[in-house]
């Protein structure tokens, strides 16, 4: 399961695990934690079995890949390492024929972001994908998903989320084999395990820091406060973002005493 911090992918993994147990199966939901923050890509894994799941390695060759984020849905990484004829369910506002994901896989799509905005008023897409998951894969019944949701979201919030589930159950597309068979060579690594400084976290950014060198007084406050050591110090005594290391948290802009750093929105994010 691929999503971004704040979209509820970890909760979704637990809802699926609970729904499966409701149907008499054993289950396990493992979240993958890195130096997470809201908006950073994250992964969660679910296993369902007839007996207690004792294996505890991460799921490296899944049967099904779920994608909660429209931009991550465009990354080939979500379709890699699937078993042959594996299923990829994407949150995108277009039909599966238009997806560029490659491999011996089947693709289904649903516009979970729009469903979430209509039913919850916020782009939290987890439950808006779970109805589609139930319909398209048949792994768990929609009734079990709804029962599980009531355990995690009691009251009105539960009702809103169940509305999202029902809507996505109706709207999900049929499965379509991927039109591309060969994956592109250039790919973004979605693995966020370990520390941000060791990984390329450029895909996490929704905003990035831009320094106004006229205003900057060279005090190094931004450099001291940056939690990921993602600012380098240039010869002219001004800071610059290290593309690979900056996760876009905005701490530098917040701490700058002369407000010389502006957080600009990444195009398409």
């Amino acid at each position: 399961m691929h999503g971004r911090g704040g979209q509820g992918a970890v909760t979704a993994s637990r809802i699926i695990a609970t729904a499966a147990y409701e149907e008499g199966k054993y289950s396990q939901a493992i979240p993958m934690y890195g130096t997470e923050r809201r908006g950073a890509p994250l992964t969660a894994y679910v296993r369902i079995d007839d007996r207690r799941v004792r294996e505890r390695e991460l799921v490296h060759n899944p049967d099904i890949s779920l994608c909660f984020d429209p931009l991550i849905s465009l990354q080939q990484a979500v379709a890699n390492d699937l078993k042959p004829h594996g299923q990829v369910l994407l949150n995108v506002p277009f039909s599966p024929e238009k997806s560029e994901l490659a491999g011996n896989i089947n693709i289904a799509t649903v516009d979970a972001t729009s469903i979430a905005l209509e039913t919850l008023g916020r782009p939290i897409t987890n439950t808006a994908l779970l109805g589609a998951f139930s319909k398209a894969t048949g792994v768990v019944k929609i009734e079990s998903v709804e029962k599980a949701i009531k355990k995690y979201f009691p009251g009105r919030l539960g009702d809103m989320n169940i509305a999202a589930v029902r809507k996505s159950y109706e709207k999900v597309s049929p499965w379509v084999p991927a039109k591309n068979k060969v994956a592109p060579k250039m790919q973004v690594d979605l693995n966020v395990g370990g520390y941000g400084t060791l990984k390329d976290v450029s895909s996490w950014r929704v905003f990035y820091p831009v320094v106004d060198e006229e205003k900057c007084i060279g005090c190094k406050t931004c450099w001291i406060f940056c939690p990921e050591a993602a600012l380098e110090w240039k010869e002219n005594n001004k800071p610059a973002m290290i593309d690979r290391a900056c996760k876009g948290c905005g701490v530098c802009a917040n701490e700058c005493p002369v407000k010389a750093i502006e957080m600009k929105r990444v195009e398409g994010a």
Partner: protein
Amino acid sequence: MSYEVMVGNKATAVGCKLARVRVAAVFPITPQTTITEYLSEIHASGELPGFEFVNAEGELSSQVIVQAATAVGARSFTCTSGPGLLYMHHPMQETASKRLPLVMAVVHRGVKSMQPDHSDLMSQQWQGWLHIYVENAQEILDTTVMAYKIAEDKRIRLPVAIGYDGYVLSYTAEPVEIPAQEEVDKFLPPYKPMPSILPDQVDPKTFGAGWGEGDPMKPWQMHHEAALNGETVIKEVFAEWGEKFGRTYGNGMIEPYRVEGADCVITAMGTIAGTATAAIDKLWADGKKIGLVKIRSFLPFPRKDFQEIAKSVGAIGVFDRSCQPGMWGPVYHQMRSTLYDEDKKVPIIGFIGGLSGKEVRVGDMYKIGEKTLKVAKGGKPEAPIQWV
């Protein structure tokens, strides 16, 4: 009985509730933090009558607070991880020397990384506690309750540490059966403060003070014998749990998996033992007869069990998730010492893996099984101890 899909850390908190813990003193540290959150929720809800929750200012204090609480007769709990456990080092020794039967969860976090390995709890081997390593959320809940019964047994009277891996278990959700409170109450009677273990002490009682004029080594001998009694008491308590609740974990000391008829066995602790079961199934399916012995109790070490197992196998492959630099893995050394005096010499080879959270996969355990089998069939190991 009810059930809930819950993470490992919640299973710990629910276990504490079922054991009717009176005092919890904790300081948060990743990946243990959510235990403290669940405990504070239990406290706020009022569902556990008389429960005191103390936000300690550090791990040293949290250990001292539960020490005092246990001494005056309150069943107590604390928990920590990695560096937090190291900070607790000094009072941990006192807890055991004062023979105070509290329970602590150690959510493994390595000493070189935030990710899990067993280097935190292994570094506390000399503190005089019993160490139990568990594999899944159900086992955490069950063992938390059982640990109080073991700790409070008059033959033991020692603190028990329950170790389990951070992240892949502490934050992983899985179905857990929650036994009914009435049933647990029948299993675990209320805790009463114990008199000093010194026979010549009357009121007022002191804990941990000087030993008077007697042999200064006497408390060490009594402490050591009590720890060795663990082998008997752990088996008794787990057998009773199995009868009452229908869930068993081997004999409590070890949990064998497909050992019968195996040419050799491998050993593992904690979550890696779970992953190893999948490798064992694959090995048998490929005609390779290799069993798994999950070591649950590291202190005391299951000496009698391994002396028995050694009679029927051709080699033992020992997996260590910690390394004492300059001395290799602690489980490896225990195993060799355990079997040194046996008439039949069984080759023992060591494997060190999963350090600083490196993922141990089914394929890794499969290869360890194959390497051990090769030695059982008379082959020479590439090295007596290998990095995985």
